[in-house]
Structures are given as C-alpha cells and as structure tokens.
C-alpha cells in the first residue's frame, strides 16, 4: 500500500470520529446554556437537575472530542508535512488562531465549570458555561475558515512555489465559508436536539421516574431539532450556488468543469481531476436523510396536551431516528472533503504533494495504532454515554454537593 492512501485513510478515520463527537458537543452546549440560564434566572431547581443530567452527558462526550482533536492537530505535521511546507503561511494562521482564541479558553473554562458547582457564585458559574459555548462556536468558525481555504484558496500569492498571505480578510469573506459554517452549526444543533429528544423518549417509553424532567427535555429537543433541520436544509441548498462556482468539478461535468480540467492539465500535467463517485453518492443520501428529518415538524403539533407521549409510537420514531443525523453529518463531510479531490488545496496543491515523505510501514503502523486507539475509546465512550443516559437524572456525579465542612475555610498560602 502506498503512503498517500494510508495517510488519507487515517485522516478520514480520525476526522470522522472527531466529527461525531464535536457535533454533539456544539449542539448540547447550546442547550445547556439555555437550561442553566433558565435556572439562574428563575431559581427553579428543575432547571438545575436538567443542567446536571445533560451536563453529565455533555462532559463525557467532550472527552473524545479533545482526544481526537489533539490527534487531528498533530496529524497535519505527522502525515501532511507538504501542507505546512507549501501553504502553511496561509492555512496555519486560522488554525493557530483557533487554538489560542477558542480551544485554549474553552477547556480552561470547562475545567472550572465542572469543579465550580457549589464553589463559585451562580453568576460566575453560568458565565463560565457561556464562555465554553462562545469559544466552542469560535472554534467551529476558525476551523471552517481553515477548511474553506482548502476548498477555495484565496488571499495569497505564490512566490518560489510557496503560498504567502496577502489578504486575511479574503479568508473571512471566502464564498465557501459563510453558508457552510451556518450548515455545520445548525447540523450540530440538530444532532444535539435529536439526542436530547431520543434519550428523553427512551425514558418516557420505559416510564422511568422523572416524567416531568424528561417531558421538558423531549419538548426542548424536538423544538430545537425542528428549527435546526430547517436551517440545515436552508444553508445546505444555499451552498450549491457558491460551491458550484468555486469548485466546478465537485458536482459534475459541466462545461466549466471541463474548462478547468483542461487548464489544470496544462499547468500540472495530465491526471485524473474528477473527484471519486463516493462524494456525490454521499451527498445524495445526506439530502435524503435531511428531507426525512424535516418530518420532525409533523411531531410538533403532538406536543399539545402531551399527545406525543400518550400515543407512544411517535416516541419510538424519535428514538429510532437518532442514528440518522449522525450518518448525515459524516456523509456531508465526505461530500465536502472527498469532493475536492485530488486536491488538498483546490487547484493549488495536489494531495499527493502534501503527504509526508515517511515510509509506508511507519504510516501503516500509525494508521492501525491510532485507529484502534481512537476506535476503542469512541466505543467505550458511547457505552458510558448510554449507561449514564439510561441511569436517569437521580444524583449524577456532575455538580454533586460536597460533604459538610469540617476544615477551616481559609486555604494556607502556597508559597509560604
């Protein structure tokens, strides 16, 4: 096997696992902000219980988001050193900004949020969660800026074969950025809403205790999912225009695509410049799933007088539909990423030039090792998530009140 294929497989595996966890992170944190804000504003303990229960699932899910994210970040240097060599001056900037502006603060805030229950003032504790959410969105934004640059390189000039940054503003107004960012963020909300609704549906089907709590989260989840799916569809279809313009080869073989391929053949030599069929197949299925999930609107009238719970079968529908948004986000990602092949930076840097000059055995060992490691951790994480989801909202470890005080409250100074 050649290094290029192995490196691409590894990127696909790591990114897919990463994506499955970060969409949940982004979606759930938004709903957590709503719930904790409601708790602080109303003082109603029901909101605190909701925050602790869903916060527990959020924090478990977050673990794999970080673990896979760190591997992603290193993978650029390990497997794709050509990317940093030829386009690092431009592509590296948004990634560096993401780590500093977003991820650094997100994790710092989250650590304080987890351990800050009963220790910090309610307002400070809520502000920390807002901080986590805002930085999570900032993180998604800068990653999409970086990714959009690979989809459609702008704001650079090539000198001595290396891209140099000329106009950072162009990266932010990249036509492949705006709609895609909206699409990804609303997809995350859809996943968060669906997850919340499906877990609540399971509890309501099983008639576990805490009817009121799961009734509330079912309603929040379904309304969020309904609003989000409409946004997903809107931002999704709105992308066809700009993407078709900047990436004519992505969706087909029109005259523009042919002209571009002729131009590339003269500049880069003959080669196969059409993306694999996988991309458009994935796109087709994703659209089907997106249209199916639009039916969630039909469930909203059943929220009236709890008909959705009394009829029971709609709860089954919600529960069984849970895998769909996850499949859709992976397919969408494949459509975007595979659809830009054979380029790593569209029309600028061929994928084969970006791969690191390491031996195939090293790359194979890395692929197998990290896939096994992250795959095992992902499955373990999902099992833990399922266990905590089904265990119910009775005293989750997150936010558990501490034992009564028996020691002096004033800590001794560290540098005495």
């Amino acid at each position, binding site marked *: 096997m050649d290094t290029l294929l192995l490196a691409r497989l590894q990127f696909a595996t790591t990114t897919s696992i990463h994506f499955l966890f970060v969409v949940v992170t982004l979606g759930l944190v938004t709903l957590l902000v709503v719930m904790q804000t409601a708790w602080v504003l109303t003082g109603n303990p029901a909101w605190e219980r909701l925050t602790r229960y869903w916060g527990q699932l959020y924090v478990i899910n977050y673990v794999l988001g970080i673990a896979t994210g*760190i591997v992603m970040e*290193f993978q*650029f240097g390990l497997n794709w050193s050509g990317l940093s060599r030829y386009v*690092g001056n431009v592509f590296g900037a948004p990634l560096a900004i993401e780590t500093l502006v977003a991820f650094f603060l997100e994790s*710092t805030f989250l650590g*304080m949020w987890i351990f800050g229950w009963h220790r910090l003032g309610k307002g400070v504790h809520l502000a920390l969660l807002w901080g986590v959410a805002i930085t999570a969105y900032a993180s998604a934004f800068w990653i999409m800026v970086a990714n959009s640059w690979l989809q459609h390189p702008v704001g650079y000039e090539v000198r001595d074969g290396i891209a140099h940054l000329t106009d950072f503003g162009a990266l932010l107004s990249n036509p492949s950025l705006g709609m895609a960012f909206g699409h990804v963020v609303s997809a995350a909300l859809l996943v968060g809403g669906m997850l919340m609704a499906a877990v609540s549906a399971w509890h309501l089907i099983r008639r576990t205790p805490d009817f009121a709590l799961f009734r509330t989260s079912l309603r929040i989840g379904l309304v969020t999912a309904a609003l989000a799916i409409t946004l997903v569809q809107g931002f999704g279809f709105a992308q066809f225009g700009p993407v078709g313009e900047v990436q004519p080869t992505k969706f087909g073989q029109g005259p523009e695509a042919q002209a571009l391929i002729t131009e590339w053949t003269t500049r880069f030599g003959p080669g196969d410049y059409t993306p694999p069929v996988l991309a458009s197949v994935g796109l087709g299925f994703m659209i089907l799933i997106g249209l199916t999930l639009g039916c969630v609107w039909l469930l909203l009238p059943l929220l009236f007088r709890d008909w959705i719970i009394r009829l029971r079968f709609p709860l089954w529908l919600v529960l069984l539909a849970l895998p769909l948004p996850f499949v859709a986000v992976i397919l969408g990602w494949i459509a975007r990423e595979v659809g830009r092949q054979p380029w790593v930076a569209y029309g600028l840097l061929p994928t084969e030039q970006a791969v690191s000059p390491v031996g195939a055995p090293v790359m194979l060992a890395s692929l197998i*090792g990290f896939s096994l490691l992250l795959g095992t951790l992902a499955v373990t994480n999902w099992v833990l998530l399922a266990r905590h989801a089904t265990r119910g909202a009775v005293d989750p470890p997150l936010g558990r009140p*501490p034992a009564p005080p028996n020691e002096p409250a004033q800590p001794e100074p560290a540098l005495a």
Partner: protein
Amino acid sequence: MDLAWYALLGLFFGAYLVLAGYDYGVGLLLARGGGPAGRRAALTALGPFFLGNEVWLVAAVGILFGAFPVLEGELLSGCYPAVAGALAGVVLVTAGVQLRSRPTDERIRERWDRVVVVGSVLAALGWGVLLATLLQGVPRHADGHVAGVSHLVTPFAATAGLAMVALVAVHGATFLTLRLPAADAAVVGRSARRLVPVALIAVAVATVVGVLSDRVRDAVQRPAVAVLLPVLLAAALFAARTALARRRPGWALVATGAALALPVALVGAALWPYVLVSTTDSGASLTVADAAASAPTLRLLGWVALPLLPALLGFQAMCWWVFRGRTDGRAPVYW
C-alpha cells in the same frame, strides 16, 4: 519578530511540560498503590487544573503551525515515532483521567488507572526523546526533508526520555505534597524526596551521554549554554529537595517546575540560530528565521496574540486562584 515567536513557542511548550508534567507525574504515581481511595484523592488533587493544563500543548502546536509551518512539518514527520508515542500517551491520559470514575465498579476504575499510568510514561518518554532528537540533530537532506526513523534510536535519546520520566515523577509527587490533605501530604512528601536523587542520577546520565555523543557535540552551537543549563537543572532539583525537607511544598513545586522548563530553554538556546541541525548536510540545517512563516502571517498572528495573551494567562490564573489550597472533605470530586 522571529525571535519573539520562537520565545513564545518555547514559553507555551515549556508551560505545557511544567503544567501537564504534574498531571503525568500524578498519573505515574497511581502505580504506587494506595488503594482506590488514595488514587481517587490524587486525581481529585489534579481536579480543576487537568483540563487547563493540556491546552498548552494544543496552543503550542497551534503556534508551531501558524508561526513555524516548515518546522512543524519537518519536526513532526521527521520524528514520527517519538511524536506518535507522546501523542498516544497524551490521548490515553486525557481519556483515562476523565473517564475512569464514570463506571462505578472499582475493578474497572483500576483498569482505567493502569491506562493512565501507561499514558503518562509514554507522554513523558516521547517528549524527552523529541527534545533529545532536536539536540542531537536530524538527517535533513538538501531537499528539505528529514529521512528515516533510525536517527531517533540513540543512547542519548533513550537516557533523555528516561530522565524526563524521572523529572515528571518528582514533579507529580511534589504537586501532591502541596495539594493533598496535610496527613497524606507527609507520606507523599517523603516519596518526593526519595525521587529527587533518582531524577538527579537520570539527568546526570543523560548529560554525560550527551556530552560523549559526537552528534550532540556537532549539533550544539553554544556549548557554554549546553553545559550551564543542566547544571541549573541539577540545582533546581537540589532546591526542591531542600524545600521539601523544610516543608515548603510550594517552593519545591516552583523548583521542580523549573527543572521541567529548563530542557526546553536548553534546546532553544544551545541550537540558536538553528532549530533543526542537519547531521548529513550542514547546508540543510534549518534556522529559526527560515522556519518562520512570512512576515504578513507573523504580523497578523501578532495582532491576534498581543491582546489575547493577558486573557489566556488571566483565566488560567483565575483557575489556580479559585481552586488554591489543599483538597479537603469539601473539595469537588469528579475525576
């Protein structure tokens, strides 16, 4: 401009080794027994700081990618096994610490704790080997690529990796001495003092092997710095031992922290103006200036970083301040 960014890169990676160093040290010490309650107490001591410590690595690599893209590609792919090993260790520790208490069964928790121990060893070894590799030079050819993986397998890299494991263990034990309830702190303080000579010997062996290695002698541009900084490192360890003996765990932690940051300073200063010294072709050595991104990129990142750094440091300091002091019965337990 290049120098400022290089210093910032060193600051972030050094801060990562200092802060996550005690995570890994505490992780290593989970292997020394102490029963379920003892291990849980050690992780509770890490508690609120854990998530804020590892982010320094992510930020360091972000700076590496944004400000030194050529170095990022060559360093990581050229030292593949060391980086991949450290990375696997980081992932294991991250997942292990955060997930170990989610199952309620003590036997499963114990298995997770073993994962944390293995991860901590891997991470410390990997970063030690990576720093040693920089110091002994890499086979960078005229085409700009570092070839092969066999250059990592040297006695110096091995001893430096082990020295890093020993340093991390001392650092973790010192952290626990500062953080655990006073009764438990006395016990762990004694192990910390016993670990100091082990770390001293490991550092001494690595230094001697390094001085004897032709590759290290050829790669080092400033021998005076390269000799002075290990001496300072040893002095920091002696200071830590004295502070531990006088029951000043805070100052001891400052000293062991300095011991973990000094190797980064050593690599940066001893190789300057180079960052990757080629062992095969002296013309192929990479200077810091050549490795840096072009001026517009550095300027842009400078405008972003300048107002941001106080905020980053401020929020980290807030975390240290809010959760300062020894853990007690009221300390929040989650990991």
